[in-house]
């Protein structure tokens, strides 16, 4: 499908222009509303549909293989942490789905690494990344010989082989 915009609902706010990954939602200077300027570069990702505060954007299946008369509508609610879908078939069949989009208040539990303790030189010289090895939770099934001094899985270089052998 490609997206299109309903004339009476769009107020030209430009949220879709800001978000479209393909840069195909633009504000038409004459009608001062959004328009899909390049439907053949639309991936039907629904980013614009989800972002539209007026529910003014919808999609119509690509003309080259999708018959008319269907609908896939979406409502993404960040505060509730859910996304709801309604699928309507050409023959009228309806299907509804609701899924979570986050388990935490939006953005609150994302690490701000600038505030984390400053890593020392030994950490810089190691192969460890932020919060490792703790966050790896390596488990107890790994051969201790294959864990290096930093607590990270590794291999002995003299076991490497070149060419076909497996």
């Amino acid at each position, binding site marked *: 499908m490609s997206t299109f915009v309903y004339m009476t609902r769009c107020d030209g706010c430009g949220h879709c222009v800001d978000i479209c990954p393909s840069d195909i939602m633009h504000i038409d200077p004459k009608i001062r509303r959004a328009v899909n300027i390049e439907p053949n570069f639309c*991936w039907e990702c629904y980013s614009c549909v989800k972002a539209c505060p007026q529910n003014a954007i919808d999609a119509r299946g690509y003309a080259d293989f*999708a018959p*008319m008369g269907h609908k*896939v509508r979406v409502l993404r609610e960040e505060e509730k942490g859910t996304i709801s879908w309604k699928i309507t078939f050409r023959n009228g069949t309806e299907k509804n789905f609701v899924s979570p989009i986050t388990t935490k208040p939006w953005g609150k539990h994302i690490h701000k690494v600038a505030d984390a303790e400053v890593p020392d030189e030994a950490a810089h010289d190691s192969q460890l990344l932020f919060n490792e090895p703790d966050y790896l939770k390596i488990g107890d099934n790994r051969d201790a010989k294959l864990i290096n001094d930093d607590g990270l899985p*590794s291999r002995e270089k003299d076991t490497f082989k*070149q060419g076909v052998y497996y």
Partner: protein
Amino acid sequence: MANHKTVYEDCDILIVGGGMAGTGATFESRYWGRDMNIVCVEKANIDRSGAVAQGLYAINCYMGTRWNENQPEDHVRYARNDLMGMVREDLALDMARHVDSCVHMFEEWGLPLMKNKEGRYQREGKWQIMIHGESYKPIVAEAAKKSASKIYNRVMITHLLKDESKDNRCGGAVGFNMRTGDFHVFRAKATIICAGGASHIFKPRAVGEGMGRTWYAPWSNGSCYALPILLGAKMTQMENRIVLCRFKDGYGPVGAYFLHLKTYTQNTYGEEYESKWYDQTKEMVGDYIDHHPTPTCLRNHAFLEEVKAGRGPIHMVTMEAFQDPHLETIGWENFLGMTVGQAVVWASQDIDPKYQNPELTTSEPYVMGSHATCSGAWVSGPSDLSPKEYFWGYNRMMTVDGVFGAGDTVGGTAHKFSSGSFTEGRLAAKAAVQYIKDMETKPSVTEKQINNFKEEVFKPLENYTVGRNEITAGTVSPSYILPIQGLQRLQKIMDEYCGGITVGYQCNENQLKKGLKDLGILQEDLENIGAEDLHQLMRAWELRHRALVSQCVTEHTLFREETRWPGYYYRSDKMKLDDENWHCLTLSRRDPETGKFTMEKAPLYHIVDEEQKKAG
């Protein structure tokens, strides 16, 4: 050029592209480079950019060592097997040993990961875990926004800068802002390329309005390869394009269907067909057909042969699984979470998989480094895992100093997917910080170099303005071609001469040579590409990057004289897999002065032994 302002930014670390790899790189850069100027530049808006823009329903790379599910070595064996032996095992193991910590962070950040009755992540398959990932991208974008000194949205990077004080070193990048028309110069000590792989270099099956319904995002235009190629960095395995077996028209994902819903394929007469092609495939590839699981390309091969034999279309048998309402919900939500278009196709065509088995198809080829394929830049591995041929100082640094890569950019690390790309971004970032700490003299970039690029970047606008005055109206000009016209020429060349859909993924030496000739002429014509506005200027540069990637892919395909991955492409003049001569990696380098490619072989090391028994 006077009407395009030049904006300078002096950065320590420049991250080109804010997808999964780019957000990982931005995040980790800040942890190690606490007082550095870290800048992330994105062509779109990082809240919804890259391949994960519309979400994902699974994380396809998770070891689960905490529950003793897999070890990183098992993943190397899996990726190696799937790629017919050809992966950079040092890079693959390095990614696999770190990936779980990223996934554990995602959970802490609020990404809904499904759990089973024991409280473990719900497995879809051996490596995949199921998620409600509609907001996967906005969540990781938030982590990048908290870490970056500055994020530039809607700036497309067109070229990397050459350091003029030291040979073979990068000094940052340039590009333009597609809203303001400003020319942006990012002078950087280290540059991490995290741009996307390449869709739309081969003619897609969908035409007209549906052209954008490619499997990989249409905005992934191969900048991750074109930028380093232009600077003279070496690339590896660029012949290893991928063809996907997916639901017809929408290219909806099949992973959850096969692995979790336990659906299966059959030909139009309701017969199992893969086993029929065993002997024929064995003739071509030998023991590789006996490996378990069957490599993706070989399953494609059986599909293609069955259709050629006149027993298509191939269907996915969904009618059994979809009688279970829980599985039916998963089947639909799988699409809504990552390929809404497939739900639209089924709604429009009245296909309810509960009552009808949907059709499958094979896609046009794509070039990328993160899925069941491993094209990309030739980079150094980590010091503790890499043989000497694979190691030159800094993890994930290319053969040009100061340019690092992650995600689709990096060649040799197949099956990293979203989580592995984010991981690789983190690895590259840590190494880039170290590189800067060790740096003795800063790169230097002259105004001359900057001004030359500025002129080149905006030339398509100039071409259009001048040429447009010659004609009354319309799209036909004797003086310029438009980006869409050039793109369609490129796709036709690649399709017909480099193994696209219309020729059944076949190519031979003479076809490839003809393809290279036509691509050379296309490159000349692209000097005359015309862009009507800043949006079309973006399309013009996307095309120029795609054309360069296509040349590289064709050179590699010509170089590897065997058919290593039947089902992805066939060298019809060398139809057998040839381990004696080609159990090696291919490398290319384009000379930035002459534009000529040189090819070489690189040794293939196996650093992980074989533990899994071949299926008999």
